[in-house]
């Protein structure tokens, strides 16, 4: 695999070489394989190789009826499964013109925001771990744990929730849900402050993230990035604000944006998003109406046609496109996952940086490999 560079004719001969990062590597968060061409420590080229856990979910969707597909979406972005559930469910509901009870919409918003909190808390930990700060990893997980515990009492699973269903949510809230949510809000307010104190100001962290992996706004748009990656580049775009779905138009919250599009901005945007999620949760707890949590769904047969809907998951813009022939099974189902597009900009923004920066950049993109491979 050794390639001789053009400069090798010179007296000072340096040799470029290829190195494999992954599929088993501590910082690729799963089974992503990056093949890198290096000159010493400097990365000249990054070639991501995907598909190590490709399960062909889109084909699997063609075999099953609509309600049976929700649980597949759990297994895509498993760190924000509530939102991937919802993204799928939303497009099916739209196609049938199904009206979801208001209480269900509020429950969905709450679990989505809780899931965003847990996902970002875990991302924070993993990112700090990538940069070598091991303790922060445990702090992130500690906070995530209480959210996951809440989900367990709510829907019975800690990761693959299968909670948001076509027509509503599978189970109504438990009695202790609201007090526990308020408790989580308080915990996260404290926790985010702690994260900021521990990491944000730290000179080493700033040096490792500021100015690293700069993704310009035009590039971010052209690559189809979404979520914190897009907002970190200074594009003020959040589907919850710009194309409010569900009841998001009833909440007050800000859309944090970065300036430079570097790793630090993406980090900052995510931390700020956690604060905003807490705000949304606190409003939702006050506003939540009573009533049923599930619409009366008879047969799920979306009329013939093609449908597309997007939703803001913790990782960005998730779209679901499907073609219906009018039957009980989709003719074609496409999941446009946020991580896939977010990762596609990695070769561009990591070339020219050091090996350690690739780890930092990859971490700041917050990719979940099953979401990429599907």
């Amino acid at each position, binding site marked *: 695999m050794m390639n001789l560079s053009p400069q090798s004719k010179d007296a000072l001969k340096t040799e470029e070489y290829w190195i494999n990062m992954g599929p088993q590597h501590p910082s690729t968060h799963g089974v992503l394989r990056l093949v890198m061409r290096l000159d010493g420590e400097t990365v000249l080229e990054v070639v991501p190789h*995907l*598909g190590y856990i*490709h399960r*062909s979910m*889109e*084909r699997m969707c063609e*075999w*099953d009826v609509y309600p049976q597909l929700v649980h597949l979406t759990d297994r895509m972005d498993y760190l924000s499964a509530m939102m991937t559930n919802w993204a799928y469910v939303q497009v099916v509901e*739209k196609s049938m013109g199904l009206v979801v009870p208001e209480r269900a919409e509020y429950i969905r918003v709450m679990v989505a925001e809780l899931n965003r909190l847990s996902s970002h808390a875990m991302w924070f930990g993993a990112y700090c771990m990538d940069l070598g700060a091991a303790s922060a990893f445990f702090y992130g997980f500690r906070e995530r744990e209480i959210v996951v515990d809440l989900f367990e009492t709510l829907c019975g699973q800690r990761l693959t929730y299968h909670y948001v269903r076509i027509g509503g949510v599978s189970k109504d809230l438990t009695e202790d849900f609201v007090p526990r949510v308020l408790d989580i809000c308080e915990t996260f307010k404290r926790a985010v402050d702690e994260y900021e104190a521990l990491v944000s100001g730290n000179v080493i962290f700033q040096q490792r993230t500021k100015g690293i992996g700069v993704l310009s706004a*035009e*590039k971010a*748009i*052209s*690559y*189809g*990035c979404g979520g914190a990656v897009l907002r970190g580049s200074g*594009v003020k*775009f959040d589907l919850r604000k*710009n194309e409010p779905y569900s009841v998001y138009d009833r909440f007050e919250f800000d859309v944090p944006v970065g300036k430079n599009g570097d790793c630090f901005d993406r980090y900052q945007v995510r931390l700020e998003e956690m604060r905003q999620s807490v705000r949304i949760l606190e409003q939702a707890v006050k506003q939540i109406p009573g009533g049923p949590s599930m619409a009366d769904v008879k047969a799920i047969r979306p009329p013939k*046609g*093609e*449908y*597309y809907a*997007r939703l803001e998951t913790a990782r960005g*813009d998730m*779209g679901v*496109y499907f*073609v219906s022939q009018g039957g009980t099974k989709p*003719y*074609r189902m*496409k999941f*446009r996952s946020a991580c*896939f*597009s977010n990762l*596609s*900009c990695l070769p*561009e923004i990591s070339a020219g940086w050091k090996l350690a920066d690739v780890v930092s950049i990859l971490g700041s993109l917050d990719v979940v490999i099953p979401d990429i*491979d599907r």
Partner: protein
Amino acid sequence: MERQALLDAVLALCAEAVVDNAPQLPEVKLPRAKFRAVMEHLHSDPGLALDYPMCMTAVDWPEQAVITCVYHLYSFPHGHKLVVKCDADRADARMPTVSDLWRGCEWFEREVFDLFGVSFEGHPDMRRIMLTDDWVGFPLRKDYRDSRIAGKTY
């Protein structure tokens, strides 16, 4: 831009475009000969400025013997969406690439190549993206059969 104005703008670019009055999003179907030129306009025309590749995929229609490539585009400056479709011949599936216009389409097109076998001409790196390089067949084509698939085969 309003739905009708958007569709009219596309029709002005390409008279052969078939406008589908789909219920959800404004949708046009372009002939393959004009596809690339129209897409360039859609991307760079400041009035349209469809600069965000929301989604790009393909749908296999064995009866019509075509694979329809579907592009969902979004415009950040204007906030409008447009669905562009273009048929590729199923037997000899080729499409002009748009990966130089929307960089995100580079990977989308690789995925379509990988799973549908549509080859995008002018693409900088036309390799399989998900499956192994020596995979035989294109799994998302309707006639794909694989004995290794566990579970339902009906």
